[in-house]
């Protein structure tokens, strides 16, 4: 009788017992691309939590993919991955992931299937970048997964030698503006705007050809690659390859008889122009100075009732006077009064007058009084790369045509990116040194007024109207004149540099 009860109860309970995970859960092969490494793998993922379309990766595949240690504790059904010296813990049946002393909730819980833990793919795309220096992006539709170190865009360094030449190549993820500083003896410093690198990866400790050593360092917004040259190096060229994705420095050794005596300031090293820049006529004869804001657009407002539009106009007029009288450079002002002019109109004016340089003057503001100093901007090139990519992706639609137009428009300014960077460096260095102001550096941003200028173009922030010290200066006519003189000196210096390059290329 008792057996009858047990049988009946067991029989009746079968339909309501928890279902095991469906063995025929959808399976798909995802292609894994290792960004920067060139390697690609295929992994098998499953959808284990229907009706959710979340993909799951087995703990074995995940640890192989990341190349990390995996520990499985059967008693508590916990999985521990050791990712870059950090313990990341998953628990079967739970949504929490514990790592870096913080708990992050996944949308799906970790599941147990075919003898191991399966992790929702959102871990890779959403959680991994927060727990480590790695990043991953998932495209479920295209069945692809990209893995890489976080945001590094200076990817590698190669040095090769042949004959009297040594070539040093810096590989970038995308084209970035750079500048080579050769002011020190037997040393070149390549400043890469927007560059992000791992100093351990970009280095050379043993001499190869004309390169003695290479070091790299990361600054806020820039990457620096420093090259020590052999005594035999007599000159170098800086070029780009692969649509700007490789910076190439070609060092040459002069015939022994021609090696000059060592000179105190490294002037024996001659920079020659990269071929794509040769013949480009940067002759500074006409400059468009743009006094920011105007009319109903007051610009930033600060202490002592300072208004940006008044200061920029005062400095623009001074700069016009100095450049025309002292330096014989023709100046066109985008506005010579309190007028309102559109941002694009200002650049169009510079293009229409075939100006050789475009300089937009501005003053800065900040919610408190702490921010102070000068900074100089040139246009960020990253946008173009992006729009080009978008245009490629969407080449079937109207949107593509729009993006392509924008892309071409941006390319106009990008053609002058190196010169813009050089001009920005000259102006920033002069302003901060001559005026003794806080140096906030040369930066890049997607400023509207710089887009579409068919010439080297920069935007100068002369100081903060919201800082007591800066505001006192900005309200003084003597400062307007000093700032104008300092910028004029920088423009003349830039002109001399461009003239020298043009001379050499003849």
């Amino acid at each position: 009788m008792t057996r009858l009860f047990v049988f009946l109860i067991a029989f009746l309970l079968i339909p309501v017992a928890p279902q095991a995970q469906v063995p025929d859960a959808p399976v798909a092969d995802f292609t894994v691309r290792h960004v920067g490494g060139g390697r690609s793998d295929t992994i098998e993922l499953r959808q284990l939590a229907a009706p959710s379309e979340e993909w799951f990766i087995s703990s074995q595949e995940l640890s192989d993919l990341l190349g990390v240690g995996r520990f499985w504790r059967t008693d508590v059904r916990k999985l521990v991955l050791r990712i870059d010296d950090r313990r990341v813990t998953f628990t079967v049946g739970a949504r929490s992931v514990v790592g870096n002393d913080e708990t992050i909730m996944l949308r799906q819980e970790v599941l147990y299937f075919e003898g191991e833990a399966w992790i929702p793919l959102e871990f890779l795309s959403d959680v991994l970048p927060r727990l480590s220096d790695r990043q991953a992006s998932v495209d479920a539709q295209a069945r692809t997964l990209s893995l890489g170190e976080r945001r590094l865009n200076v990817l590698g360094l190669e040095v090769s030698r042949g004959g009297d030449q040594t070539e040093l190549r810096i590989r970038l993820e995308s084209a970035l503006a750079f500048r080579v500083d050769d002011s020190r003896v037997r040393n070149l410093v390549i400043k890469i705007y927007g560059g992000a690198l791992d100093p351990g990866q970009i280095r050379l400790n043993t001499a190869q050809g004309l390169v003695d050593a290479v070091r790299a360092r990361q600054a806020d917004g820039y990457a620096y690659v420093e090259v020590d040259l052999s005594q035999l190096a007599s000159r170098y060229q800086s070029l780009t390859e692969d649509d700007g994705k490789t910076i190439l420095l070609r060092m040459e050794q002069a015939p022994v008889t021609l090696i000059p005596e060592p000179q105190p300031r490294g002037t024996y090293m001659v920079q020659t122009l990269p071929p794509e820049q040769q013949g480009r006529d940067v002759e500074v004869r006409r400059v468009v100075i743009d006094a920011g804001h105007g009319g109903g657009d007051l610009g930033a407002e600060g202490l002592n009732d300072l208004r940006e539009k008044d200061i920029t106009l005062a400095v623009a007029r001074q700069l016009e006077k100095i450049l025309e009288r002292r330096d014989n450079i023709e100046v066109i002002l985008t506005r010579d009064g309190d007028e309102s002019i559109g941002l694009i109109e200002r650049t169009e004016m510079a293009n229409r007058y075939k100006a050789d340089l475009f300089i937009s003057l501005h003053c800065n503001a900040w919610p408190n009084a702490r921010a102070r100093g000068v900074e100089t901007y040139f246009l960020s090139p990253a946008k173009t790369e992006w729009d080009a990519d978008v245009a490629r992706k969407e080449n079937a639609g109207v949107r593509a045509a729009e993006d392509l137009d924008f892309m071409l428009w941006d390319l106009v300014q990008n053609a002058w990116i190196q010169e813009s960077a050089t001009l920005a460096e000259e102006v920033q260095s002069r302003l901060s040194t001559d005026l003794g102001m806080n140096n906030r550096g040369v930066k890049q941003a997607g400023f509207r007024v710089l887009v579409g200028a068919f010439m080297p173009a920069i935007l100068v922030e002369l100081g903060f109207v919201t800082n007591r010290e800066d505001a006192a200066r900005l309200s003084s006519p003597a400062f307007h004149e000093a700032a104008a003189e300092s910028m004029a000196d920088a423009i003349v210096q830039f002109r001399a540099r461009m003239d020298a390059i043009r001379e050499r290329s003849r």
Partner: protein
Amino acid sequence: MKPWVGLVIAGALVALLGGAVWFAMTFRGEVEEEPEAAVLSDPLELGSRAISLYFARADGQGFVRETRTIAVARRRDAEVEIVLGQLLSGPRSKAALHVFPTHSRLRQAFYDEERRLLYLDFNDALVANLNPGSAIELAVMGSLLRTLAVDFPEIERVQILVDGLEVETLGGHLDLTRPLRTGDWL
């Protein structure tokens, strides 16, 4: 015990368990048929997650990261609204500064999943109440874009709208006529 007593008990058990099975199956069916919105009305069902918010440093030279925990929403745009609501409410750290203009508010977020493009529609206080220094514009956009880049890595681009319309810039500097790429702001 007489045999019929056992049979009665067995019959009662069968009826009871049968009823329980019927109820469980019927009940499960009802839940499945519930409209999605009703199921999701309780955000706790989806759990919560930690997010990172980036606020401008008080001296304007970088950002300060703060973490919060929010209820997870099923739709990306709904979750973006929650995260940016937290961001617009300002920092807790004294090292950070609230750079968003007074009364600025996110009206709506809309995520175009196919193009990985997020539209953020703000009220006009974002423009009208801004003291237009480039540093402030860059801090406002940096704070938004960096937060989105970290909390929503799948969002690739962000188009800023004000009162439903595209704007050229916030205050005469940063070009907003096209989407901004989140990756550029990390």
